């Protein structure tokens, strides 16, 4: 385990931004920190990167308490804030050179810029870069101290599909080749679906779900499409089974505690002919809506 957030609480006046937030990130993960706007993602990232202090709770990174060893923690992690900006009058080389000195590190800046595809532009003022280029430069900056863990706050927000795809590929490459764990805060489900192996879902300052992405998609209420020749509703009546009729057949939804085997055995026992059973995989969007409330709209 590389990161453990334990019962984090942060208040801004009367407003509770984080309410007992706990989760853990394993080494090598691309961990998705998913939540709607205003859920508390940025506050969490700022606390994890020691920019903000929590009102209570603790953060442990690589076995060290962040409140007791903030300098060490800052030297082994790095972060890309959502609302970050560069010094537009500097060149990319000067910019990375400045941060290399601040981190007391000696990276090969040319190589670093090459890895994010900015080598050709390294002497041009950052003010002439596009948003996507600045974002890539920000990622290069966040690698300046060869961190064990990078915290990225909405890294693809505001980018066009090509820019987003470039950042996705870059992050996958960093995770694999540099052995860097990534915590990615986002409200964009596509980012999570493409990149993350584990996620935590935060809403109104509370973690509402945490785990492996595929397991979370499978967990909770599972939906199967069971095609039968005749209507099975007289034989399937427990309250935690929902049924509906579609053009394809009879749709059976199973709630917690009810297994597919139970339903199938009931159908067979009552001599209902089963034509086909198809697992309806829950999409991340469905999971997101379910856990954060259906009235919320994704951006």
């Amino acid at each position, binding site marked *: 385990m590389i990161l453990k957030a334990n019962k984090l609480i942060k208040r801004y006046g009367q407003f509770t931004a984080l309410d007992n937030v706990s989760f853990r990130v394993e080494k090598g993960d691309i961990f998705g920190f998913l939540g709607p706007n*205003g859920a508390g993602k940025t506050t969490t990232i*700022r606390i994890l990167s020691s*920019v903000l202090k929590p009102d209570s709770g603790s953060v442990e990174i690589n076995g060290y308490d962040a409140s007791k060893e903030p300098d060490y923690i800052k030297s082994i992690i790095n972060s890309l804030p959502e609302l*970050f*900006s560069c*010094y537009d009058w500097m060149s990319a080389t000067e910019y990375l050179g*400045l941060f290399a000195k601040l*981190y007391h590190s000696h990276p090969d800046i040319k190589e670093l810029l090459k890895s994010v595809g900015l080598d050709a532009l390294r002497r041009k003022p950052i003010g002439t870069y596009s948003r996507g280029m600045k974002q890539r430069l920000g990622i290069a900056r966040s690698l300046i101290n060869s961190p064990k863990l990078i915290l990225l706050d909405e890294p693809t927000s505001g980018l066009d599909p090509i820019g987003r795809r470039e950042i996705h590929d870059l992050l996958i490459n960093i995770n694999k080749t540099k052995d860097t764990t990534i915590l990615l805060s986002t409200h964009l489900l596509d980012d999570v679906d493409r990149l993350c192996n584990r996620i935590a879902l935060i809403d109104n300052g509370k973690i509402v779900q945490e785990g492996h992405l595929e397991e979370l998609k499978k967990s909770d209420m599972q939906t199967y499409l069971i095609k039968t020749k005749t209507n099975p509703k007289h034989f399937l009546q427990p309250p935690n089974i929902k049924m509906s009729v579609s053009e394809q057949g009879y749709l059976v939804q199973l709630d917690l505690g009810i297994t597919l085997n139970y339903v199938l055995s009931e159908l067979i026992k009552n001599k209902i002919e089963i034509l086909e059973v198809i697992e309806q995989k829950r999409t991340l969007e469905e999971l997101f809506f379910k856990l954060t409330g259906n009235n919320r709209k994704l951006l």
Partner: protein
Amino acid sequence: MKEIILKELKSELLTPRGYLWYILTSVILSILSYLFLTNIELSLLDQSTMIFFLMEAVLSLGILHSIIYGSDSYAGEVERGTMEVLLLTPIRKTSIAFGKFAVSVINWFILFLISIPYILVVGKSGKNISVAITYLFILGTLIIMIVTSFNMILSIKLKSVKNAVLVGMLVFFLLGTAIILPPSLKHSSFIRYLDIINPVAAAVNSFDSVVIDSEGFRRQVIRIVVILIYLAAVILLLKRASQRDELVTGAR
């Protein structure tokens, strides 16, 4: 801290914002000097008074720059989105604060160097030129340190360049009011009391005392002590504010 100083210096000297300020300062001092030497009424002033006015002008320009620089130091970086990445690095918050503070003082040194030829030309046949330059350097530096620290604190607390500049200007004009009052009002006990506790007035009165009245150092001690007390107080407050305040705003 060295990295912060170099970054700030480059930003101040290599960007239009930086060098335009020095050009503007030179233009203002050139116009003032030209008027002192050619305008019939102004040229009737004795040389010491001309030097004194020029010293006031140089100090005012320095204060103006310190208000703007100090106000922008934190709030500007927060507003532009560059502060958070600095805070992510292992550099101490006080190093950021005092790196920026040092650059404001260096800016004042450059302004002071620019002003020397003007003081020498305007007061070429007058007395107390070397004393004037020495006092302008020493007391000017102390006042610039006070104004910079005060506006950096405003910048940290208000997190808005506009508001910090407004409050800084307001305080500057308040302090300046006591200096520009007509002599009849200056004799009132309230104004005299205000004059004693006003660091800017202490510096200006000291300029007046050594350049026009040719008074010695002993008469300046109380004024210098007042300035030093203010300086110690604002530096302590700046250190405290830079360490304790959360320097980020925006998204939750």
